C-alpha cells in the first residue's frame, strides 16, 4: 500500500496541529524519529509522564500492572483484590496467561477473589473485612501464599493492608503479603509492575535453600506466557539442556520464585517490567543478567547463543548449535512460502513495554517494515537505552513507588563471574547489564511515539496507511473499521505462541492470513465502489 516518501517532521506536525497549545507542546516531546544506522545521535523522548486527561489513552493503571501482569500469572498464589468488585472482575482471566497446573495441581488463575467492598466498608474501613476474607480464602483453598492488592478507594480510606497481611501471615503460617497498587499511584501500569516486583523480592525470592540440580541454570524475567509463549521457550531450553528455574511470571509458582537465587544467569525478556529485579538479584545474590529476545527465529537463535556463550562451555555451545540447526529448516521453509506474500508490506506497533521492539524481528523475517512504533508504559531507557538511566529525573510520580535498598545477602551472595570474565564476555558480544533501547534500531524515516493517543493513532493511519496495525483490544475494532487488519499484541487475539521457533511460524502464518485476507477488499458493496454513473446504473436497473 504505502512506501510513498514520508517526512517524519511533517507527520509529527500534523499529529499535533489540532491540539490545544499546551497539549501539543507536551505531546511533541513524546514523538521522535528513529535513529537507525550507526552514528546518529539518539534523540531524547519524553516517557513515563502523566497522560493528558481526555485525549483517549490506551494505558491502564498501577493495579492492572501489579495484579494483572506481574503477580496474576503465578498460578499457586491466591491473588485477592481488596476493593469494590470492578477491578477484580476486569482482571479475571482477561490476559490469556496460559497455565499448566503441573503435578502439584495448584492453579488459582481461573478464580477471581475480591473483598467486594461496599459503601459501609468505605465509610468504616475495610481492614476487618480484609482479614476475614484472607481467612476465608485460606479455609476454602489452602494456598501456599496469598497476596493482596489495593485499589483506588482503599488507598484513600487508608486501610493498612500491610499490617493485616503481617497478622494473617502469623496466624495462618503461610506467606501473606500486600501490594499498595492503587490505580492513581503511578502514571501507568509500569508503577504496578515495580510494586509487585518489590514485594516478590522482599517476601519470596531466595527463601528456599533446597539446592536445584542442573548444569546451566537460568531465570527468565519478563515473560508472561501469553498464548503459551513460555511453554515454547521452555521446550527449547529443555532441548538445549538449560535448566529454567523460574519465569517471572508466566505459569510460575511461589516455589520456583523461592529458589530463583540458585540461577547463574538472569535473562531479561521484558526490560521494562523486570530490569530492576535483575539489578536487585545481581546485588543481592551476584547473578549477572543479559537482555534476551525470544521473539523471532533469528532473535531466538541469537539469544540461545548468548546464553551458551555466557556459560563458556563447549558442550552447551555445541548443543545449542545443534538445536538451532534442527529448528531452522522448518523456519526457512515457512519463510520461503510466505515471504513473497508479505514482502514490502508495512506495519505499526503500539504495545506495552517491550513487544513493540521485540516483534520488529518477526516483521523483519517476513520482509515487512515497521513504520512507527511506541510503548504504552515504557520509560526513557526502554527507548534510548540504559545509558540514559542516570539522566532520568525522579519526579513526584516516580517518588510514589518504593525503591528497595538491597544489599549482598550474607549467606547467599556468590559472584558468578569475575569482572575480567565479564570483560572477556563483552568482547564476545555478551554484554551484561545492557540494553540499547528501541530508537537506535528504528529507521530514520520512522516515528517513535510514547503513550500514543487515539487521535494520533487515527491521524497516523490516515497519513501512512500501513498494511497492518498492532496494538490492544481497545484499538482493535477502531482500526478494523478503517478497513485494515489489526493484530493484538497484548493478548494475541487468541493466537500464539509467537515466541521461539514454533512461535515464529505461527506468526508468519497469522500475519500472512491477516494482510492478505480477502475481506478488506470487500468493505464496499459493488454499487458503492465506483463513481456516480455506476450508482445511477444500479438505480436504473
Amino acid at each position, binding site marked *: 500500500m504505502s512506501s510513498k516518501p514520508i517526512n517524519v517532521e511533517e507527520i509529527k506536525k500534523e499529529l499535533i496541529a489540532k491540539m490545544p497549545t499546551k497539549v501539543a507542546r507536551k505531546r511533541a516531546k513524546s514523538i521522535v524519529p528513529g535513529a537507525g544506522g550507526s552514528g546518529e545521535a539518539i534523540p531524547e523522548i519524553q516517557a513515563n509522564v502523566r497522560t493528558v486527561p481526555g485525549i483517549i489513552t490506551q494505558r491502564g493503571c498501577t493495579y*492492572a500492572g501489579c495484579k494483572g501482569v506481574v503477580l496474576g500469572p503465578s498460578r499457586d498464589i491466591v491473588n485477592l483484590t481488596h476493593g469494590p468488585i470492578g477491578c477484580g472482575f476486569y482482571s479475571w482471566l482477561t490476559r490469556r496467561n496460559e497455565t499448566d497446573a503441573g503435578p502439584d495441581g495448584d492453579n488459582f488463575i481461573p478464580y477471581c477473589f475480591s473483598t467486594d467492598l461496599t459503601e459501609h466498608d468505605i465509610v468504616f474501613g475495610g481492614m476487618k473485612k480484609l482479614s476475614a476474607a484472607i481467612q476465608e480464602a485460606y479455609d476454602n483453598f489452602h494456598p501456599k501464599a496469598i497476596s493482596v492488592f489495593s485499589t483506588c478507594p482503599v488507598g*484513600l480510606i487508608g486501610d493498612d493492608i500491610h499490617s493485616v497481611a503481617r497478622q494473617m501471615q502469623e496466624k495462618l503460617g503461610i506467606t501473606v503479603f500486600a501490594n499498595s497498587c492503587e490505580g492513581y499511584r503511578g502514571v501507568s501500569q509500569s508503577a504496578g509492575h515495580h510494586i509487585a516486583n518489590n514485594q516478590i523480592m522482599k517476601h519470596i525470592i531466595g527463601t528456599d535453600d533446597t539446592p536445584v540440580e542442573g548444569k546451566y541454570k537460568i531465570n527468565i524475567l519478563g515473560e508472561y506466557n501469553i498464548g503459551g509463549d513460555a511453554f515454547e521457550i521452555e521446550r527449547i531450553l529443555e532441548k538445549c539442556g538449560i535448566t529454567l528455574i523460574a519465569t517471572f511470571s508466566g505459569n510460575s509458582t511461589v516455589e520456583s520464585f523461592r529458589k530463583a537465587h540458585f540461577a547463574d544467569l538472569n535473562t531479561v525478556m521484558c526490560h521494562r517490567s523486570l530490569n530492576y529485579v535483575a539489578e536487585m538479584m545481581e546485588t543481592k545474590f551476584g547473578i549477572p543478567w543479559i537482555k534476551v529476545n525470544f521473539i523471532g527465529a533469528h532473535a531466538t537463535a541469537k539469544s540461545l547463543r548468548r546464553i551458551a556463550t555466557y556459560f563458556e562451555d563447549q558442550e552447551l555451545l555445541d548443543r545449542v548449535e545443534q538445536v538451532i540447526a534442527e529448528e531452522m529448516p522448518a523456519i526457512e521453509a515457512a519463510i520461503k512460502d510466505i515471504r513473497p506474500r508479505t514482502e514490502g508490506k508495512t506495519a505499526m506497533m503500539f504495545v506495552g513495554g517491550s513487544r513493540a521492539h521485540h516483534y520488529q524481528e518477526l516483521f523483519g523475517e517476513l520482509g515487512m517494515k515497521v513504520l512507527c512504533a511506541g510503548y504504552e508504559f515504557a520509560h526513557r531507557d526502554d527507548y534510548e537505552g540504559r545509558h540514559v538511566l542516570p539522566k532520568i529525573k525522579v519526579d513526584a510520580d516516580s517518588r510514589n513507588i518504593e525503591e528497595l535498598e538491597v544489599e549482598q545477602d550474607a549467606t547467599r551472595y556468590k559472584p558468578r563471574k569475575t569482572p575480567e570474565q565479564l570483560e572477556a564476555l563483552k568482547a564476545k558480544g555478551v554484554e551484561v547489564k545492557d540494553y540499547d533501547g528501541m530508537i537506535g534500531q528504528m529507521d530514520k524515516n520512522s516515528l517513535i511515539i510514547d503513550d500514543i493517543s487515539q487521535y494520533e493513532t487515527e491521524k497516523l493511519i490516515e497519513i501512512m496507511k500501513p498494511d497492518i496495525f498492532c496494538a490492544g483490544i481497545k484499538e482493535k475494532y477502531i482500526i478494523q473499521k478503517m478497513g485494515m487488519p489489526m493484530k493484538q499484541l497484548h493478548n494475541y487475539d487468541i493466537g500464539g505462541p509467537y515466541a521461539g521457533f514454533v512461535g515464529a511460524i505461527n506468526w508468519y502464518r497469522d500475519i500472512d492470513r491477516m494482510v492478505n485476507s480477502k475481506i478488506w477488499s470487500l468493505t464496499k458493496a459493488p454499487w458503492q465502489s465506483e463513481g456516480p454513473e455506476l450508482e445511477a446504473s444500479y438505480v436504473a436497473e
Partner: protein
Amino acid sequence: MALLRHTTGEIKERKALTVNPAKTCQPIGAMYAALGVHNCFPHSHGSQGCCAYHRSTLTRHYKEPIVAGTSSFTEGSSVFGGQSNLITAIDNIFTLYDPEIIAVHTTCLSETIGDDLRQISQKAKDDGKVPEGKVLIYASTPSYVGTHITGYSNMVKGILKGFVAKTGTPNGKLNIIPGFCEPSDMAELRRLCGMMGIEIIMVPDTNGVVNGPMTGKYEMFPKGGATKEEIATMGDSMATIGLGRWATTDAVNYLDADFKVPGTILGMPIGLQATDRFIETLHKLTGKAVPDAITFERGQLVDIISDYDQYLYGKKVALAGDPDQLLPLVELIVTLGMIPAYVVSGTAGKYFEDRMAELTKDVPYDCKYKCGPQADMYLLHQWIKNDPVDLLIGNTYLKYIARDEDIPLLRHGFPILDRVGHQYFPTFGYSGGMRLLEKILAAIMDRQDRDAPETRFELQM
C-alpha cells in the same frame, strides 16, 4: 483435572470473600448507557485504569469500537480533587473529537474524594470550555454501591436530567427505557412497537452504535442512538415503560415525578408471559390494537414449546446474571416445565427474593437462589457439585463450570466474550423467545445425541 479444581461441594459460610462474582461495577453500565445517545462521548472521571477496563470489557463483548475519555487521576488529583483534570479533559475532548455531548460518570476514586460533578460542570461552562451548543451531562456512579446495573440506571437518569423538558404539547409518543440489554433487543422493541403503530422514544438505544457495519471508515459517532432533541421531548410523551426493575425504576420515576409522564415498570420481555405483559401494556397505554402479525409470532412460540415439551420437562437449570434478566428467564424456564434449581445474582434487591419465591412455589424442587454479597459463581458451582443440573444459563465465565461439570451452557447476559450473535439477534419478544428455545433445545438435544447408547441413538428426535 478440572479447571476450577479447588472448588468442592463443601460449603463454608463466607461473609467477606467474593469468589467469581456474578456482577461488576457501576461505571461500565454508565458507559454503556451513554453510548445509546447519539453523538455522545462517555467520560470516566477517575484513574485511567477503570476506563481502560470498562472499554476493554465492552469491546470484548461487542467486538466493536468503544471509546471513552478518562480524567487520568494521579496521586495529586486524588488528594486535591479532580476538578482541573476534568476540565482539561472536557477541553481536549471537544477540541479533538468534537462530540455534541459529553456524558461524565464517576468512579470509586472520584466518589471517595467527593468530587462534585454538578459544580465541576458549571465551572467548565463558566471557564468557556464547553463550546456553544454542546452539552455536558453526568451521573454519580460509585462502584462500591450496587453493580453495573446500578450504573446503567444512574446514567439513564443522568441522560434524562440533561435533556428532558416539557412544552405542554403532547407528542403522542411513548417513552421506552430498556434495561441493560443488547442492541439487538432494543431493535426488537422498536420493531414490535412499529408493528403496533406506536411511535416511541427509546433511551438509551445502542442499536447501530455497538453493532455497526464495516464500511472502511471509522466513525467515532455512528448513526445510532437517541438524539438529544428527541430525548428533550420525553416530557410531552403519553407514558413511559421501563423494562427492568433494577435498571429503569429511577428513570421512570423521574419522568413521572418531574414531568407527570405516567410510568409503568415491567420485567424485560424475555419469554412468553413477560412479552405478553409488555404487548398488553403497549395496547392498554396507547389503545392500539395488537396486530395479527404479533399474535402469529406468539402462536409460533407457543407451538414450539408444546412440540418440544418432552425434552424440557423436569430438566434442571442453573443461572447467574442480572436480576432484570434472570427473573423473566426463570419464569420462562418454569413455563417450559424445567426447574430453575440454582440462581445467583450479585445485584441485590428484596424484590428478587420475593419474585423468585413466587415463581418457584409450585416447582417440585427445593430451588436455591441468592442475590447480593457472596451470591457468586463459586457458590453456584458448589451447589451444582452437590446436585448437578442439565443446563447452565449465564455469561461466558460460566464456561469453566460447564466444562468441569460437563453441562451444556447457554450464553446469555453480560459479558459474552467468546460467541457471536447477542449483538445481532434478540432474545426479547416472541421471536427472541423462539431463538432462546432453539438454543435451549439445541443444547439439550445435542447432549442427548452425544450420550445416547447405540441402541437409542435416533434419526428423528
